[in-house]
């Protein structure tokens, strides 16, 4: 039996979930909701995500890598190059699992990297670790 114990209060943060597959956006949002997040927005590619990040306030980005128009990695680079977005916690959730991908993501400034398929426990762990490390909670 799994009892839901919330160690951290994520309810004040707004998350942007970016994935070109609607199914995955819903799964990620649902898992984050179970982990305690309450405010969400979604984008289906990096370009749409960047527009949303620039026009309203977010405290966390969870993004796929391989997407049309603008990839998650390019989105990450744009975020890190922007003065007001560069400190945004950024988690990549992707099926790209080669060593060089992970190195590339780390060099671009990703705060976490989850390989699909993943479990709800993995997502929760990584999210908690990121917020702890960034001193946001």
């Amino acid at each position, binding site marked *: 039996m799994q009892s839901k114990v919330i160690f951290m209060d994520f309810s004040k943060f707004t998350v942007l979930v970016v994935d070109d597959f609607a*199914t995955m956006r819903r*799964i990620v949002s649902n898992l984050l909701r179970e982990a305690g997040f309450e405010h969400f927005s979604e984008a289906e590619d990096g370009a749409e995500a960047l527009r949303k990040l620039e026009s309203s306030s977010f405290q966390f980005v969870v993004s796929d890598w391989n997407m049309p128009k603008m990839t998650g990695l390019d989105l990450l680079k744009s975020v890190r190059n922007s003065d007001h977005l560069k400190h945004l916690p950024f988690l990549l959730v992707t*099926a790209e699992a080669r060593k060089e991908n992970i190195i590339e993501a780390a060099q671009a400034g990703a705060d976490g990297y989850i390989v699909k398929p993943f479990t709800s426990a993995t997502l929760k762990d990584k999210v908690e670790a990121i917020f702890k490390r960034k001193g946001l909670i």
Partner: protein
Amino acid sequence: MTANPINAEQAFKELGQITRSLHEAMSELGLTQGLVEITHEIPDARDRLSHVGQMTEKAATRVLDLIDVAQPACHSFKTESQCMAAEIESIRKRAQGRADEVDDVMAVAQMFSTEAASFADAQNAVLSDIMMTQDFQDLSGQVIKKVIAIISQTEQQLLSLLMHSAPEHLCMERAQVGLAGPQVPDKALQQDDVDSMLASLGF
């Protein structure tokens, strides 16, 4: 290696000869015919693959919709059960020893409420697991998209090969052979179409 490097003109001439003998070999072996058939099959194969992608997405979305209905119900049932258990407990404490029969019933009700809360929690965990199994749609979808891209590319290459070797074959009618298997919906006959077709044939 001391072989003299060939100049561009020679190279093109030799390439031309190779291409010509390849064309001739292809015609002699009847390969162009096969290629024409494959080229005709490819759009169909592509449609079928993307149909598979659409079907799995639809199924996954339906499951996620159902989970969206069931999960909030689990959450509120858990909260209500917890409140109920706490309420009963406090009443029992206040009324201690005043009526044993009532207290026994209350004890049962308190236990039941606690179990109900655990039950709702466990069901919610099951729903989360069901949801997580839908992630196959994202991964299979990506694979299908990739294969469709490969098929399209192959089709382009085959078509240009055919344009060079046997353009007149391209408008040829293709032979219908074998069983086609499940069709994409807009190509498939509906049961009504099948029935009326059979009726017109005297069945």
